[in-house]
């Protein structure tokens, strides 16, 4: 781990009985970046997040945050972290106002005005009981509480799960504006790939507990391309192009290439005497589907 890393996960394994939920995952989250961890349901994202914030002890490996062991120094570290959990865990009988004042007593650094402003912006009343709020409002309240400590690290565990488009946008807008203001390091797990695509600097994909991808967003998007050509069988290997997936359609072929660059593509084209080929960039969602598995389309 270097000083630039806010979070370092080293060979972390999480087990539930004989099931391995996270298998020897190693990753680093650099200061000031937005780190998006993607994965299908059951890939091990939530287990990883629980270990990341010191709520669960991994079976093996170590998690450090700001250079300190998160399991042993959790209480101290949580002063610097804002968390929006996957399921809003605040007591349902508490009013939003009571929740805010409770958190105000807990944290040494607390910006009550910021909470009030955000709640006003989200149109959530302070006297509303938390349990009576909609799912979106609950997430907004949790986000407002997490932001009120001016966190150095913001952990968002699937923050848009179950939210409609408007609520999703409002939540991401809030994060983006905070990032713009303060450059908070953000660790986010989400299914909302479109939303996170504009936000994330770094992407990792967790598949069946294994980290199958972990790199900068720009680099990722630069090396993944979709290539379509009319021939049914073309040797992509001729240009040293690695395929993440190959699909036959009509008389042609669609291949997702994971190490695209112009030189390699020209080498491939000259080697195969291919007259026509469409090369198009891919969205994060398309890359995710190609990497996390074809069955993910369902």
């Amino acid at each position, binding site marked *: 781990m270097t000083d630039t890393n806010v979070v370092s996960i080293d060979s972390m394994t999480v087990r539930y009985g004989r099931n391995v939920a996270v298998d020897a995952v190693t990753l680093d989250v650099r200061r000031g970046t937005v780190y998006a961890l993607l994965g299908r349901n059951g890939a091990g994202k939530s287990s990883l997040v629980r270990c990341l914030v010191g709520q*669960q002890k991994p079976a093996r490996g170590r998690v450090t945050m700001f250079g300190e062991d998160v399991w042993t120094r959790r209480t101290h570290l*949580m002063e610097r972290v804002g968390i929006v959990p996957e399921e809003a*865990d605040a*007591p349902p*009988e*508490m009013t939003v106002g009571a929740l805010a004042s409770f958190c105000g007593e807990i944290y*040494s650094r607390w910006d009550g005005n910021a909470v009030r402003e955000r709640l006003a912006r989200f149109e959530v009343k302070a006297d509303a009981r938390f349990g009576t709020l909609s799912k979106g409002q609950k997430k907004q309240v949790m986000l407002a509480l997490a932001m009120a400590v001016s966190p150095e690290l913001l952990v968002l565990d699937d923050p848009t799960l179950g939210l409609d488009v408007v609520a999703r946008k409002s939540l991401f807008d809030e994060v983006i504006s905070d990032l713009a203001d303060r450059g908070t390091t953000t660790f986010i797990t989400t299914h909302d790939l479109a939303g996170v695509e504009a936000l994330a600097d770094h992407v990792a994909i967790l598949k069946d507990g294994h980290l199958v991808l972990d790199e900068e967003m720009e680099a990722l998007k630069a090396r993944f391309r979709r290539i379509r050509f009319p021939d049914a069988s073309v040797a992509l290997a001729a240009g040293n192009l690695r395929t993440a997936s190959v699909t036959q359609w009509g008389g042609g072929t669609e291949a997702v290439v994971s190490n695209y660059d112009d030189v390699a593509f020209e080498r491939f084209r000259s080697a195969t005497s291919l007259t026509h080929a469409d090369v198009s960039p891919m969205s994060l969602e398309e890359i995710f589907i190609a990497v996390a598995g074809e069955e993910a389309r369902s």
Partner: protein
Amino acid sequence: MTRVLAIAARDLRQRSFVFTAAAFMAAIPFLAALLPYTRWSSRGDVISVGGVVVSIGFTYALAMILGGSFVGRDLSERRLSFYFSKPVSAAAIWVGKLVAAVVTIGLCFGITFLPSFLITRRVWAPNLSGISPASMIMANVTTALCLLLVAHAGSTMVRSRSPRVALDLLLLCAVVGGVWLTLRPLFAVRAMRLFKDVGLFILAGLVLSVLLAGWWQLAKGRTEIRRSHSELSRSLWICAGAIVLIAALYVAWVFSAGPRDIDIKMGTQNARGDWMILRGPAHHRGDYEAIFLVNLVNGRWMRFEPARWGIASFTRRGDAAVAISPLRPGRQWNEPGRVTPGQERGELYVQRLDAPASDADTGIQTQTVWAGVAGVALSDDLSRVAIAERGLLSVHDLSRKALLASVRLPMGAHEMFFASPDVVRFYSFEKPDLQQRPVAIHVYEFDVRSRRLQQTGERRPFAFLVSNTADGTTALLNERGTIIAADGRTLAERFAIAGKARAAIVLRSGGVATLDVSDGNGTIRVFDARGVHLHDIALGRAVRGGVREIVPGKKLLAAVYRNDSFENPRGMDLFVIDFERGVIERREHELQVLCGMRQSDVMPSLEYIVTDASRQLWRWNALTGVRTRLF
């Protein structure tokens, strides 16, 4: 601290509706008092008793509910992450939630209890058997805390739905079994203060174990319910096991006390001189009083535990030790000073000295404990026992544990013994009423086979039975200082010895030796089998004492107190007297002999067990005067 208070305050606010419910419950005793069938005179009683019942019921139910939910619910509903995602330690979460639960219970108890108590405090104590409010509150708070913690542990285990619950049940059984095995021996020997102290130690330890386990559960299990359960279980059972182990080791240490570890309160040497009973509180072991049977030949000893509260003694011939011990200790056994004579049923223990490994429990129950071993006689072959108590004489077969016969006693029974295996002889005093002196002494024989009670002799006016021979042929009676040698069965007078006798024995020759005390001076007087005076041996200052024959036809041992203290060996002198020549052979100062001084039979051994002024035990050879320390 701020965070603990914030969590406690949050939980308290969440449960504010409970206080409203408590206020409604507090009204129930008052509403009950308004019911039409309640008389005006008893309305105070209804309110006071109702207040106690409602407050205890509500508090305990609340403790169970809160215990089952104050952490367990958050765990199972995955809400504990709300706290763990904040800079709050596991200890702060646990203490904050616990404080809130305890305060809720305390306030609810106050709300339900105080209104009825304040209004009816004058009739409160009499209605509740004099229980003080403070002791009731303490007992309730302790019980409620225990229920809260037990419910918390149980709730965590059940909510996790882990197969580990089966292991928890096994370990619970092991702990309960351990507590039982630890406390039972103390209960069996009626060391009730120690029983209470060790019990309280275990209870406090177990409460502390659950408190620590609750914190450990949150510190190591955090938001994972199964891990939370496993951490709770691990810490709870390790702590509980350690507590029970410490208590068990302490109890084992208490019971490891040997004869040298006790302050001797009572000691008796048997008629054969080869065994002794030692009794006294063990050093630094609370109220544990040990009774030991010590074999004086080989130095081995055994604990005679059942005799903790009974009085242990040897049989006439000295071949068995007998004790009656309470069957079931009641409240009065908590405080030795409060023992009410005759209130407890007892059970009889007979330890055969020729078979020390045999079971002493006869299985025979007695109506009282206070009758003690004075009302018990064993046949010479140790096959039968006669018990006289509460106006009833019963004879049991020891090997079959069966009642052979019983008969209603005309009066009390004294100096009871088996004249033959089938005949029990006893002496009884005739008293016109309890306040007056007896007017006559009677001899009875009860034939077990024919179940017939027969008066065989009588002496009027009354004379105390001083001594009788082992075979029962001769009895010595004391009629205002005059010793009457009489037939043991009929009390027909053989001869009388005028004087101021305080003690007398029949000599092996058939003669009589008496200890007379006159004007503060003691004299041993020796007579032949016809009552002819042989010798007077002056002993010097004496107020009372005893005499026994130690070498047939030659020597006597006289034990004389120079003052009235029974307990203090200071002031007791021992004399070895050659009564053939009428001279004192040896005088030992400040020694107390432990053997009985009323028996007319001769101890085969010449080694007597004596204690000195510092209660140290010695073997003392009456002929040579050589003393060796016993322990």
